[in-house]
Structures are given as C-alpha cells and as structure tokens.
C-alpha cells in the first residue's frame, strides 16, 4: 500500500509528493538549503516563515537560486 500523495508542479515539472509535504520537507528531499533559495507558490512569493505550511494538490511551485550572471 503506497503512501497517500498529492500531485503538484515544481519548476514546471509534475511531481508526486507525500500528502503531508511542506516546502521545508521538499527542500530537504532536494538537498537544498532554505537560505539559498526563494520560493513562489502559485505565482506569489512564499516567505520563509510559511515554508512549514502544508502543500495542497495542484499547487504550483517555483524554486530558484542564484547562478552566475552579468
């Protein structure tokens, strides 16, 4: 029996996450430091104090970081 899951979109790709997922748990899974990224949830900036709120089915996430640029 598989864990209940939710379908979300991360950086334009469909992903299936455990149903109790949060941004914090997703970043941990992706081995990303929260201090080094910024997150958009459904096109709105998600402030760091909201990373522990549960994600819902159909949520669209953008996770970005800094790269070299001019």
């Amino acid at each position, binding site marked *: 029996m598989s864990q209940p899951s939710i379908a979300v979109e*991360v*950086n*334009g*790709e469909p*992903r299936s996450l455990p149903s109790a997922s949060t941004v914090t748990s997703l970043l941990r899974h*992706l*081995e*990303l*430091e929260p201090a*080094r*990224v*910024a*997150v*958009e949830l459904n*096109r709105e*900036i998600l*402030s*760091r104090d909201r990373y522990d709120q549960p994600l819902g089915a159909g949520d669209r996430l*953008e*996770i*970005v*970081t*800094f*790269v*070299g*640029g*001019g």
Partner: protein
Amino acid sequence: MTTPSSETPLKFGEFQFESRLFLGTGKYESLEIMREALAASGTQCVTVAVRRVSLDSKQPGILDFIDRDRYVLLPNTAGCYTAQDAIRTARLGREAGLSSLVKLEVLGDRLTLLPDPVETLEATRTLVKEGFTVLTYTSDDPVMALRIQDAGAAVVMPLGSPIGSGQGINNPRNIRLIKNSLSVPMIVDAGVGTASDVAVAFELGADGVLLNTGVALAEDPVRMATAMKHAALAGRHSFLAGRIETKEYARPSSPESGKIATSSG
C-alpha cells in the same frame, strides 16, 4: 595608490562603494577562477542571475564562492522579455538575497539583446513602488535615460555596446549627454571588451562601470580583472583631473626662448 581628496564613494539607495567597478559572475570557466577574478578587480558589488534550481542533480552553489561580507549581491533580471517576468524575477531575487537591490534588465530583441524601453519603464515604476533600489539597464538614448530617472530608478545604466559584444563604447557622445543630464548616478553597463573601454567610460563621466564577459572570457581572467581595476582608477582620476582641450595644431612643451639653434625651423 592614494585616493585624491576630491574622490568620494559612489552612493545610491542605502549602499556606498569605494570601488566603482561592478562585476558579473557569469561565464567563468570555474567558480574558483571567478572568485580570484572578483578579488583581483577590487569590486565590492557583483551581479548574479536568478534561475530555477535543478531538481535532479545537486550543483555547486555560486554563493559558496562569494563572500557576502566583502561583496554586495546585485540580483539581475537577465533574460526577461516582459515587465511581468522581470518583476517576478526581481521579487524572487529579493527573497533569495534578502536585499532590495536589483539590476533591471528587460530585453526586446534576442539577436542584439537590446532593452525594450516600454517594458523597462513599466517595470522600473513598479519595482520602485515596491521599495526596490532599481538599477535600470537601458540603451544609450539620452531621452530614455531621463524617463528612467523620472520613473524613480536609483541608477541609470546605459550600455556601452550590446551585451557580451566587446565592442566597447559605441556612442561616447550619448554617454556624455546622458551623464550631463542625470542627477542620479550613471553606471555604464555592457559591451566592455578591454581595459581601455573602462577608462573611456570613466573619462566620459561614468560614475561606475559594470562588466562581465570582458573579464570572464579573457584568456587570463584574473589578469584582465587586474587591468580593469587599474583602468577604472585611471579613467576616473583622469576625469576628475580635468583633461586639456584638444587643439588643431601642436603646442611645444619646452620653452621657445633660450634655444641655441639659429635656424628658423
């Protein structure tokens, strides 16, 4: 090298810089070379781009190679073609960098990477309203530069020539016109190919120069960064020193009187 008393730090927003050189962090062969080049240039402010993280492979983070006690991060909106995308990118950059500084770049053409003036102006207005310190990239159009200043930009950044082209300062007269008309600082951004381009920009009155490719893709980026540092100082001091007028004919540097020659040469 001592700094003449007439020189002051470059200030805009809540920021202040002794070095008037701004460096990009893109296109370096390695992050180690980038770190060395940044140090050699003496810059205190570096641009970074905002991009999606890779979900598959863990990449080395550029922030591991940028000492934030030494360099102020200047997130850019590079690669955006609409005001809307640029605004979103700026907001993400502010969230990631915890700083309200943004280099606004809204492009209008994929071949020349020239900025879209209409979208640029709209994005400048919105970001200023949202409390950003906006450094706006623009063409070398003096009227557009004033529009950007009126929109509330902290700095106007006219291009020397197209991004990454290495053509230098294509329209020095416009750069001077822009500088003379603005009350906010002008940082010449883009097109620098070699050190003399930096010197020329400062001699024209630029308050700062931002460059990336000219250093990153030089055969020896660290040495080129050193050259850029010296060119910035040379050009800036030259500007402040006040150059002589150009004349049509020669003027002797040695006295005309007391010469032993008798012929009238």
